[in-house]
């Protein structure tokens, strides 16, 4: 630490010079902040200001730069110095824009600014410039698990970009469900007729691509390591295991159709002439353009009824609650099989909502043109017999109706092949029986067999799907470097699966590339810091391994946490979890924040100047406060806001320290937790709330009122509400009085 040289730069622009005594701030930086170089500038972010700092870096050897100007969210281009530690002291959005420009508050505004300068210097002094994680791997091969259309697409697309691919398929052939189709739904104009599946060409493409190695009759029996250095066991059905190294993994393990036998009321399993959509494909392939014949007696089918949403969108809880998305178009396509071979066949589709988004609408029209009849109705029963009877309520004609048919097709849903539900013990709601369906033989088989402390497969989101929870970041699974795609992540059609698989291929490539450079993946992409831990202090409490939202931490043979840096997303939840404070990042540590808390000047009990510590998530709450400032929404001048990477990284020692130091209130502002969590690190905010739910005892132990600490969910749009929360805390303090803990 000896060679840290802090340069503190105070900007006088944007009204800072008029509103604040910058000379005093410089003195604070120098005397209290121990900055060796201190300068002010009329307009720090312009060419001359930036050049001044650069010169100090180059000539004066300044390596820790404290910029006392605007928010860390502003002017990033100007202040983006490389190779130095940068702390931003937010005097503009954090002070003068949230305080009125009046003489009465001039003093406390100045105090606020001075505190922030102290905090910035304190942070800077404890920061290190991150060095690349020495344990990173640089394998860039991509493993794709599953040889259906999703997996094949991922493989081809990654190979096209120049990457080597291992494609593992558990059956004897590639192709998955697509290979079993007679035709597929069109994905380009004209959206009029079923089109060739394109499977032979795709197979050929894979066969001839030297970059792709295919493992058939094989499963992944072990996955360990981290992005850039995964170690994989590929086991053949016939025995024999190969160990391979890969940089990233794509899980494209697909789906199984919902078992029709679970729909006896719809004739499922009761008549050979009641089939699911996959069953119809089989019949259509057998007919190959000639009239389709029915299974029971081989008779040419003259009438067919398609029952949409069979066992789907079920509100009773008996069957699948979701919509599988593709089935309307699939039934339309299948009805066309009949109409195209013989226009006189009666083909009726009974639906409740016909769902043909985008140009599917053209396909729908085309089927109508061919004479397929669409009836809005709810099917209650399919009566087996030589002539099947479909009983339904015609919702348009408000009639109880019966349609007779030679064949009934049940449009059942997709069940994800997502392996072991690692959260099942934790009580994640699950659809009854789906695991059995997925495994076929009643036993759930893991797809990845991860050796991770937190379980064998990817965490599921809902109904067994591996989808990401995020709308903006659909690829963010909770296992770094492992991306799921295709119907294993949510029900989808072939077109979407292909897009998804292509996107997943990019993410896998990106994960491997970044791992090779020792960088973090989303959302802190590019971050070089990683958690370091002081082994001698560790009590092996396992909180970090359990709480890491990304399963990055395993345990070694001696039961110490084993950090897989390349799996880490740098959120700091482990740091927040650690009761003995042995986990920190080089540029973000228990100390960088802790010393900021301690740096604040806490006036005595009789000053009527309380101090409120606001620990604000840098992703949402902090920007909200920034934008409040841009709109000149004011809040208490007694607040001292410290941005944190995630509320999950908040270590309770900071709160303890603050309270002992005489702070009068502590506010934690994080993202929404729970089912619709908005926390970018999934569990961070939730963990923080959980930890803070126990703070009351601490407060009572210190004879402090419980109201002094509040944890709240703040969205980035809470531009008006976030300042209000701060002001409410100030009012609370006014009511209950200042903390007696002051010296």
């Amino acid at each position, binding site marked *: 630490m000896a060679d840290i040289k802090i340069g503190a730069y105070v900007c006088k622009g944007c009204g800072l010079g008029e509103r604040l005594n910058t000379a005093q701030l410089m003195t604070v930086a120098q005397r209290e902040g121990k900055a060796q170089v201190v300068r002010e500038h009329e307009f720090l972010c312009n060419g001359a200001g930036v050049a001044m700092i650069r010169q100090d870096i180059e000539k004066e050897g300044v390596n820790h730069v404290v910029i006392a100007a605007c928010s860390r969210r502003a002017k990033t281009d100007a202040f983006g110095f490389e190779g130095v530690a940068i702390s931003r002291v937010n005097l503009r959005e954090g002070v003068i824009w949230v305080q009125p420009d009046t003489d009465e508050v001039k003093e406390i505004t100045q105090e606020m600014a001075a505190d922030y300068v102290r905090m910035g210097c304190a942070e800077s002094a404890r920061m290190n410039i991150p060095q690349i994680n020495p344990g990173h791997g640089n394998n860039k091969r991509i493993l794709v698990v599953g040889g259906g259309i999703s997996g094949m697409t991922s493989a081809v697309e990654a190979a096209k970009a120049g990457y080597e691919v291992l494609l593992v398929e558990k059956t004897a052939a590639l192709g998955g469900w697509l290979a079993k189709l007679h035709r597929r739904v069109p994905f380009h104009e004209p959206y009029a007729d079923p089109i060739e599946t394109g499977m032979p060409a795709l197979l050929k493409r894979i066969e001839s691509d030297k970059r792709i190695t295919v493992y058939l009759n094989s499963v992944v029996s072990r996955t360990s390591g981290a992005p850039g250095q995964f170690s994989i066991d590929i086991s053949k059905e016939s025995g024999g295991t190969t160990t391979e190294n890969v940089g990233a993994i794509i899980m494209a393990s697909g789906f199984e159709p919902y078992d029709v036998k679970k729909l006896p009321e719809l004739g499922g399993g009761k008549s050979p002439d009641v089939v699911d959509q996959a069953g119809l494909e089989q019949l259509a392939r057998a007919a190959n353009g000639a009239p389709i014949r029915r299974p029971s007696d081989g008779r040419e089918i003259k*009438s067919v*009824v398609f029952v949409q949403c069979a066992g789907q969108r079920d509100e009773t809880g008996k069957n699948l609650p979701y919509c599988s998305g593709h089935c309307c178009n699939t039934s339309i396509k299948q009805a066309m099989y009949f109409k195209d071979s013989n226009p*006189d066949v*009666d083909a*009726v589709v009974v639906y409740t909502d*016909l769902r043909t988004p985008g140009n599917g609408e053209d396909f*729908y*029209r085309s089927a*109508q*043109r061919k*004479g*397929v*009849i*669409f*009836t*809005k109705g709810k099917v209650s029963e399919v009566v087996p017999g030589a002539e099947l009877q479909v009983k339904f309520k*015609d919702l*348009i*004609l408000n*009639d109880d*109706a*019966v*349609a*007779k048919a030679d064949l009934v097709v049940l449009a059942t849903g997709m069940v994800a092949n997502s392996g072991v539900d690692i959260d099942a013990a934790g009580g994640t709601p699950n659809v009854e029986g789906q695991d059995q369906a997925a495994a076929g033989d009643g036993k759930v088989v893991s797809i990845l067999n991860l050796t991770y402390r937190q379980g064998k497969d990817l965490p599921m989101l809902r109904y067994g799907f591996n989808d990401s929870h995020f709308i903006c970041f659909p690829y963010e699974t909770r296992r770094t470097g492992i991306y799921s795609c295709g119907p294993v992540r949510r029900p989808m059609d072939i077109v979407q699966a292909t897009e998804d698989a292509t996107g997943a291929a990019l993410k896998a490539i990106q994960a491997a590339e970044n791992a090779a450079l020792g960088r973090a993946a989303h959302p802190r992409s590019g971050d070089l810091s990683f958690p370091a831990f002081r082994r001698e202090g560790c009590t092996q409490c396992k909180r970090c391994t359990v709480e890491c939202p990304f399963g990055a931490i395993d345990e070694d043979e001696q039961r110490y946490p084993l950090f897989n840096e390349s799996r880490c997303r740098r959120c700091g939840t482990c740091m927040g979890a650690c009761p003995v404070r042995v986990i920190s990042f080089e540029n973000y540590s228990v100390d960088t924040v802790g010393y900021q808390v301690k740096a604040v000047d806490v006036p005595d009990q009789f000053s009527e100047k309380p101090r409120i510590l606001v620990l604000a998530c840098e992703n949402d709450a902090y920007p909200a406060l920034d934008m409040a400032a841009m709109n000149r929404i004011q809040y208490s001048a007694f607040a001292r806001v410290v941005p944190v990477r995630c509320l999950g990284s908040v270590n309770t020692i900071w709160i303890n320290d603050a309270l002992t130091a005489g702070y009068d209130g502590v506010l934690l502002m994080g993202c929404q937790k729970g089912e619709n969590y908005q926390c970018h690190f999934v569990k961070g905010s939730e963990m923080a709330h959980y930890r803070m739910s126990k703070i009351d005892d601490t407060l009572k132990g210190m004879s402090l009122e419980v109201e002094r600490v509040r944890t709240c969910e703040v969205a980035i749009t809470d531009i008006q509400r976030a300042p209000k929360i701060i002001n409410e805390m100030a009012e609370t303090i006014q009511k209950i009085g200042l903390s007696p803990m002051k010296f």
Partner: protein
Amino acid sequence: MSERNNAMVEKYRNDFLKEVEANVEEGPWVKMCMQCGVCSGSCPFGPYWEHPPQEIFMMIRAGKRDEVLKSESMWMCTSCYNCIVRCPRELPITHIMHGLANYAHRLGIAPKMNPTRRFAKLFWQNIMKGGRVNELKLSVGLYFMDGFANGVKKGLAMLPVGIGMFKTGRLNPLGLLGGGKCKGAGDIHKMVKKAQEIENRRKGFAS
């Protein structure tokens, strides 16, 4: 008239739909309806329809032959074309309604006493006389449609209207004797007869 008319129509089979496609003006469009209901909501006489157009299309698809053809509904069409211009599927609904009415009328199963059916018949006879409308004969014919006594009553009710028209020179008092006639009326008769023959042949009607 066609023989297949009274054949058993299977529900939710396409028999009736196919019959409509073959015999009803613009009938092939019926299958294109997506049941949005904009036509039904757009019809100015909508409230008087037992089955509005979109429902009729569904009934045709459901094979409800009698309920459709015997219905008074399509006789309510005022030919305002609201449904056509609003239909998201561009169905020529007005024409389909006309076509269905015409078809039912031809089959002889349209409601016998429906006033529009009767007026339409009268109208056609009127124009067939001389190739053009004779408005006086048309209105007199209309009033006496239900017999002499009724006609006098209706005629009396309409008398002020008629007098107004006479007075302003917009109704020819001598119209009953003739007037409004094409020179080529004979040709027109022959032409229409021929057209009817062709249509019957195409649509499988007995002439």
